[in-house]
């Protein structure tokens, strides 16, 4: 018994005790092959998945080192079967290779004949493989490169893609390092990516993923297509590229709902690419519009499903995925692995620590007790209306005001999902409302006012979920949401509560009605937050309002 910080469970989860003296070393040792699943305050949960193991294999770790670190840090004897399984799983990667044969073009080569025979027989590969050249080699139709990799991954024999890439249309791009330099890990990330050809670079928030992208472009020196989640992110990319590289305004195009520019470097949003007219994707031509030498995917974990399909046809082009996490809510990590590429770089945790990253917000759930009349009306409501009734209880209004008053120095956002309630709130707090029907001009005016501090409180509808950059907001009060969506919670929290320059604590309040379905949804979201390591607590509305209890209405 080594007394290490890690508990290895036979269901392939690893429990890391955070307060253990060896926790740091252990985290660094297991991060390359285990995915962080949950990170509550004391014990973090990692999971060993085939993908994680293959990713680490692609990054050059071998089974021996994985097994060693498990045994080294494990507190208890590690089940033998699990070690065997790890070794066997890792051994499956790279038994098959995709190569460019000078005579036959794209071929699938098996370093293990039996594996090749096994996969060649599979029905899932029907139509993707061509004629057999010899015992170890089978021809592959060039157009099937992506789909073949997907199918092989599903069969459990991920292929190593060594078939190379087209250079694309050359375009001079250089980094302009005036007064700044690439951080060492950024450079390593770019080198790792370039050596591997295609793949994903995993860096935590704020670690400078955009710079990694820019440096990759400067290395490729070719026309580049950058895919981002939304227009705001696209503009940020553009600002960064203009500041950090030799690219000029004229060389960077924006391909979004508003503008359709195709330039040597084009930034497109997922949204515009996946928009359809009459069932057909209308903007697919973008991928063929130029001879792209590099395709950059921002926030790979959010990549929409149709993009995968387009990506399957782009396998001859270099692809760089950027993300903070490989875990996808829809479980399509396998497609990221096979279509964009294996993980090429994972920032060592020590560097993340050096970022001084701390929990950016204190999350508080405020529970209000409904009045008897409200409870009665809630009790007799139809099931589908219950959440609305519970979430929009008028009892919440004074609580929200009390919360706003509690932070007189801060910029406060009040976010809700039901317009009636927002209007009530707007009147009650005497604050303007931004909702879907608000004109762009009005929005800009209000946002500007909020940014410069002349407007202290702003009420937002669901538009607050997306595309808003309001770094000044330090307090958010959520009064209702879209049921129990964890995604929404993360967006509201992540987008609105940026870490403050002066390290001030941000606050995120959720006001919920006690003993109703509202609490249940809140519990669901809380669990998500707690798993993400956010400290959160529950308080009674009475505590917020403070004695004496004011008369409601």
């Amino acid at each position, binding site marked *: 018994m080594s007394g290490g910080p890690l508990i290895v469970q036979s269901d392939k989860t690893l429990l890391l005790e955070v307060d253990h003296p060896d926790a740091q070393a252990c985290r660094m040792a297991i991060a390359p092959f285990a995915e962080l699943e949950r990170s509550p305050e*004391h014990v973090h949960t990692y999971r060993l998945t085939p993908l994680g193991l293959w990713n680490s294999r692609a990054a050059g770790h071998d089974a021996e080192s994985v097994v060693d670190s498990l045994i080294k840090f494990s507190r208890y004897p590690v089940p033998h*079967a699990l070690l065997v399984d790890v070794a066997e799983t890792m051994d499956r990667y790279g038994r098959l290779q995709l190569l460019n044969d000078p005579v036959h073009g794209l071929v699938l080569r098996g370093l293990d004949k039996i594996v090749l025979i096994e996969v060649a027989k599979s029905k899932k590969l029907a139509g993707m493989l061509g004629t057999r050249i010899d015992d170890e080699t089978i021809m592959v139709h060039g157009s099937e490169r992506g789909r073949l990799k997907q199918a092989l991954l599903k069969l459990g024999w991920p292929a190593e893609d060594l078939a190379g890439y087209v250079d694309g249309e050359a375009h001079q791009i250089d980094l302009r390092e005036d007064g700044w330099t690439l951080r060492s890990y950024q450079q390593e990330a770019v080198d790792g990516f370039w050596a591997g050809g295609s793949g994903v670079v995993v860096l935590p928030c704020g670690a400078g993923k955009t710079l990694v992208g820019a440096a990759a472009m400067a290395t490729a020196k070719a026309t580049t297509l950058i895919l981002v989640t939304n227009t705001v992110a696209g503009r940020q990319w553009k600002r960064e590229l203009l500041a950090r590289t030799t690219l000029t305004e004229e060389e960077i195009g924006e391909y979004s709902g508003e503008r359709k520019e195709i330039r040597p470097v084009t930034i497109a949003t997922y949204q515009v690419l996946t928009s359809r007219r009459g069932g057909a994707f209308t903007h697919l031509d973008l991928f063929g519009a130029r001879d792209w030498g590099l395709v950059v995917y921002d926030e790979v974990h959010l990549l929409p499903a149709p993009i995968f399909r387009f990506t399957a046809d782009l396998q001859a082009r270099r692809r760089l995925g950027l993300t903070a996490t490989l875990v996808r809510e829809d479980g399509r990590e396998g497609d990221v692995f096979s279509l964009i590429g294996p993980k090429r770089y994972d920032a060592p945790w020590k560097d993340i620590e050096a970022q001084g990253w701390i929990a950016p917000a204190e999350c508080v759930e405020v529970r209000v007790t409904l009045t008897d009349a409200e409870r009665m009306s809630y009790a007799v409501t139809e099931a589908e209306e219950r959440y609305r009734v519970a979430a929009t209880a008028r009892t919440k209004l004074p609580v929200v005001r009390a919360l706003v008053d509690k932070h007189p120095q801060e910029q406060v956002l009040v976010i809700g999902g039901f317009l009636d309630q927002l209007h009530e709130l707007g009147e009650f707090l005497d604050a303007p409302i931004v909702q879907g029907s608000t004109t762009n001009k009005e929005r800009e005016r209000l946002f500007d006012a909020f940014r410069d501090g002349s407007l202290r409180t702003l009420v937002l509808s669901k538009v607050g979920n997306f595309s808003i950059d309001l770094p000044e907001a330090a307090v958010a009060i959520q009064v209702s949401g879209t049921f129990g969506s964890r995604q929404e919670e993360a967006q509201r929290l992540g987008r609105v509560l940026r870490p403050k320059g002066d390290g001030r604590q941000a606050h995120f309040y959720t006001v919920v009605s006690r003993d109703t379905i509202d609490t249940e949804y809140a519990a669901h979201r809380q669990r998500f937050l707690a798993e993400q390591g956010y400290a959160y*607590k529950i308080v009674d509305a009475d505590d917020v309002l403070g004695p004496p209890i004011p008369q409601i209405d």
Partner: protein
Amino acid sequence: MATTFADQLRSLPDEALGALIQLRPDLVVPVPADISALAVRAQSRNSVARCLDGLDEFALTILDAARLSRAADTALTSVDAILELAGTAPAEDVRVAIDRLRVRFLLHGPPEALQVVGAVDEVTSPYPAGLGRPADYLDARAAALCADRAKLRRTVLAAPPGARAVLDRLAAGPPVGALNRPALGPESMAEPIRWLVEQHVLVPISEAGRAPRPDGELVELPREVGMLLRRETGPLGVLRPLPPVPGAPSRDPRSADSAGAGQTMEAVRATEAILETLAAEPAPVLRTGGLGVRDLKRLAKVAGTDEAGTALLVETAYAAGLLGETDAGPNQELFLPTGAYDLWRATGIAHRWGALARAWLAMTRQPGLVGRRDERDRPINALAPDAERAGAPQARREALNALAELDTGAAPATDDLLALLSWQAPRRARGREAAHRDAYAGAALLGITGLGALTSYARLLLNDSGPDETDPLGVHPEDAHADAVRALDQLLPAPVDHMLVQADLTVIVPGPPEPDLATELDVLTEQESASVFRVTPASVRRALDIGYQATDLHELFRRRSRTPVPQTLTYLIDDAARRHGGLRSGSAGSYLRSDDEALLAEVLADKRVGTLDLRRIAPTVLVSPRPVTRLLGALREAGYAPVAEDAGGTTVLSRPKVRRAPSRSPRIAEASTPVLTGPRLAGVVEQLRRGDIATRAARRAPVTVRAAHGQAIPGLTAVQQHTQAMAVLQQAVRDKARVWVGYVDSHGATLSRLVRPVSLSAGYLRAEDERGESLHTFALHRITAAVTEE
């Protein structure tokens, strides 16, 4: 022939006789009456076969050499002749092997005139060392060819490549080949065979009266040709005096132990998961016996093991008495955990493992058969009678002992171990390969081996059934078992009595929980994985249901948690406690309701209806434990005007009882015949000697006494005979003469003794035996005859 087999045995010193009995314990089960009987038994087919089963490959080959080297006329061989045949092996090894055969009396007689026990030929292959029968026995023309050594060599050398390949295969043994087609004459044979048969190098054999074989006629390679072809390796083929040493990667014993210990925890956990699942949802016993495939799959999924592993654990749990069948209605039985399971679960991990490992070692089941198909091509189910194999425990012992005899930490490949086993006892290993493989797979799964090497604690478990010199009665499995469990316990993590509570309402128990803690966790949380539990509103409610108060829960978490109890958990408990009991339910025989509260108050106060035991549960509702009819009757009698209503249903809440099958005591069979040692062995030898002396003495006894064994002397009735004997004895007491006495002993055997009678009284004869060493007492009614010594 100098002396008989029995005489040779008789002339052995005690130690040698003891050694024989020790090597062939079946000879004295039951103890034979005398050495002649022992000799007969030692030459019997069964005993010889059993003895051969225990011999290694080399000894068997040397025995083959002895058979081959027998002179045609006398059927005798000699050490020198054997040495000559086995020339390629070191002479010393061969001598040792011969001695081993002689000690076992498979070979007997003096070194220059050794004889092979006849039964050997009956129970072994007719082709010793894979060589055919001599040519002159098979065919005259072949004999002629073999007699001419030069011609034979020329012929063999001239064989075309195809024929040569056939020859080489037959020379390697067995020397008989089938032609794979019915014999229609030489033309139908394949070309190489035909050539060989025509040259008389191969001889077609067709035994008279034998049914035609489906695979065609047989040809045999004469012994002389075979030996010629083997001139490279020697006539006996390749000799391996030493066991093949498995090319074993060596593991650090510590890491092997550690991996094994990890696996034991895993095996115990998986077993528990399987049994828990069966407790919650019992599996029906199939009509043909056993557990259905679908149920096995279900269990495998829960336990997180593959189906083969699950089958093994299910079988082991059954063998350990943790799982049993119980009746569940007509023609239906269910598999359910037994009461013993609850006891098992309350013990520590090492103990739980010990129970499983012991049951596994001793169970007469071969779990590896589960999922295979039987001879009728039906799948074999877990726990079904088809997987019963009586030899399984012994196969398991053999397999593990082979591993135990290697260096500590050796982790050879299974195939190497099988080769070793096959060398150690080729006759036994044949057909047991699957059982041995199964044993290794099971050992790995149960953590008996770790990283392929035998773990130190499992070694202790195996040691216990070995011979124990200090204890003549043999084995104390309990002691060694306890040792193994203790050793394992040292390796396992200490039980944990605390937990870490986190804000996402998970509870981490960093290690195996103490039984107390485990019980609390069972009630308070839902288990998510081995060490992760989650507190949910439902689990808190469950705790409240069985009598915990909110304060108890707070206190419990405070006491058990090493980390501050998160505020959210406190909230969850308080919230659940607040709402717990917000609704109340109960049962009543009838109710009485009215919108008029005053009227109900009047009824409640009315003494005339006091027998109804009415109780007010709400301002407008009264309930009574009495049935509606009685309520209505009593009220109407008292002058009220109640009207009956359709009755609504009532529910009764109670804690569900855990279902268990009746306990069974585990079947743990003794693995093998106990080895005789020390005093007990000496006793057996002495008993034999005595029997022999008695028999010999009896042979010298006068015919009258001997004839009295069994039936009366012609002309005399038994009574007359007895009277006569008494007269003889009385005379002898007076004369102090020696008398042959025939009597029936307490086992009913008739014996004769030469004794000097001393006294004759009170129904007993007292007499000195012929050596004058001791005084014997004979009951007179047992004496059948007496004759004075001539």
